């Protein structure tokens, strides 16, 4: 589902070249739940950005659902993000002026514009909120009227809106207390069991343990991998 081949990402800082990622090779199969762990500055966010088609590698090849993304232009990358990937952020990143339901509708609007009826769009968004286990009575609440856990559920519902095969979560529990965080991770696990490929970036081992596999990053390189569970 996701394949990184000899991926290197460098930044220039003045005369100095900084390696954010060094020769990364990673293969994530369909339906897998992979946690990426590492201290800050280890390159894990850069890696997530590259997988999420927000960033391009300096060298190497990236395949998402068998599509080589290196050659795509901005519109092409936007389409991949829209159709193949659902993003979940640490700070939820909901649009504050939109209700929970409207936040979930947003990716549908970007994809279908006016070709999807308002009614159908609402139905789809409500279904996603249900999948993210948010009670329907919160659908018309604005983000600031919701708790952190509820907001993250809305964000997850938004990530599910266009039914992408991949969910990328960047420290999804980072802004939540441990109990709520655990519930969110259980939700991601459930979605994974329903067939989504999930990649979580975290520095919390308790979060990472939800994965089938943990990839440890250090100084831009894969230090080691650890298989978990009975798979």
């Amino acid at each position, binding site marked *: 589902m996701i394949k990184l081949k000899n991926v290197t990402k460098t930044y220039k800082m003045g005369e100095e070249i900084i390696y954010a990622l060094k020769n990364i090779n990673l293969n994530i199969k369909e339906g897998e739940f992979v946690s990426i762990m590492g201290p800050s500055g280890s390159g894990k966010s850069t890696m997530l950005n590259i997988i999420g088609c*927000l*960033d391009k590698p300096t060298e190497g090849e990236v395949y998402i659902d068998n599509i080589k993304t290196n050659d795509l232009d*901005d519109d092409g990358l*936007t389409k991949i*993000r829209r159709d193949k990937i659902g993003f979940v952020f640490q700070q939820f990143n909901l649009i504050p*002026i939109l209700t929970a339901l409207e936040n979930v509708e947003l*990716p549908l*609007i*970007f994809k279908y514009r006016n070709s999807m009826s308002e009614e159908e769009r609402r139905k789809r968004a409500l279904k996603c909120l249900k999948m993210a286990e948010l009670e329907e009575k919160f659908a018309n609440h604005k983000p600031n009227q919701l708790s952190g856990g509820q907001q993250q559920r809305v964000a997850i519902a938004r990530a599910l809106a266009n039914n992408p095969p991949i969910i990328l979560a960047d420290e999804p529990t980072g802004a939540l207390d441990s109990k709520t965080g655990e519930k969110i991770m259980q939700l991601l696990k459930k979605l994974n069991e329903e067939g989504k490929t999930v990649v979580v970036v975290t520095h919390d081992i308790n979060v990472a343990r939800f994965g089938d596999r943990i990839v440890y990053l250090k100084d831009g390189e894969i230090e080691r991998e650890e298989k978990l569970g009975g798979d």
Partner: protein
Amino acid sequence: MYFELAKRNLKRNLLRSILALLGIIIGVAAISSLGILGGGLKQGIMENLGSISNYIIVFPNYQNGYTSFDKKDVEKLRVLNCEVIPIYATSDFVYIKGKNRRIYTNIFGIDKDDINYLNLKVKISDTSAAVDTFFSKANEINIGNQLVIKNISFRVSGIYNSTYLFPDNSLILTAKTYKRLYGEKKYSRIILYVRDINNIDKIKKETERILNKKEKKCIIIALNSILEAINGVITKVSYFLMGIGAISLLVAGIGIGNVMLMSVVERTKEIGVMRSIGASKKDIIILFLYEALILGIIGSLIGAFLSLFFGYLIVHYLLKTSLSYYAIIYMLIGIFFGILTSLISALYPAYKASKLDPIKALRNE
């Protein structure tokens, strides 16, 4: 939904949106009301001079020895698609009763029914006369005063604006009265009243063909060309005034651009989020243009209606004419430029927003 999103974004910083709106309102109101002022000027002049543009005047050609027209000439012109108004004319002394004053005046005789075509807004009977404003002012004469011509008394029953047709210091009697006084059977000129201004040239040519068949018997003058020249000048003045109004709209545009740029900076992170969940660059541009469009439409509509109010004040109290259809044209022009300015000034901020690097935008707090 784009519209809804744009609307809510504008509400988010209501005061700022209102200030931007105010700029557009003032700009559009300035353009439209100055336009209306120009239109009012034009209409004022048309009201004074426009009445002569439907007329063709036919004079006898004195150089070839012709000094008048007879009944036959008039009858020949009756085939034309216009009203043929034969005019008697002479000069004589008029005695003003009660003032003990004798004035030498141009005296015209016109058929009672024909007077209606001349747009003089006066009524005369066989025992009354109409005088022009110059004559009335110079001799302090009002409706109801008595004049004496050839020992016969006439009541002044109307006062008309002097024009090219009937110059300053003139007096009009009915044709019947004129003949009783002067016994004349020949006409000194013929006026043709053409209802549709577009036919003026055609009728002028046909008149030429009918009367000047053998030799140049008469001189034919159409007055619309003079009017067109005056109109041209006023139109230019109008555009100049609107140009001044456009400066305030330009300032409004800069205001909107400024507000939008601030908005882009403040919403950088949101833009990043939208990009990451599937918004293309185009979507971001559309979103910002919608905001500008809403500001433009609301501001322009309010501005245009304000201009109607200002326009009414200017036209009514300054020019002393009335508003008419042209006001709507200038309102539409104002609205068009108001919306256009808003959109143009949002182009750069929208472009800038779309160009944001999603990663950097997401990292922005």
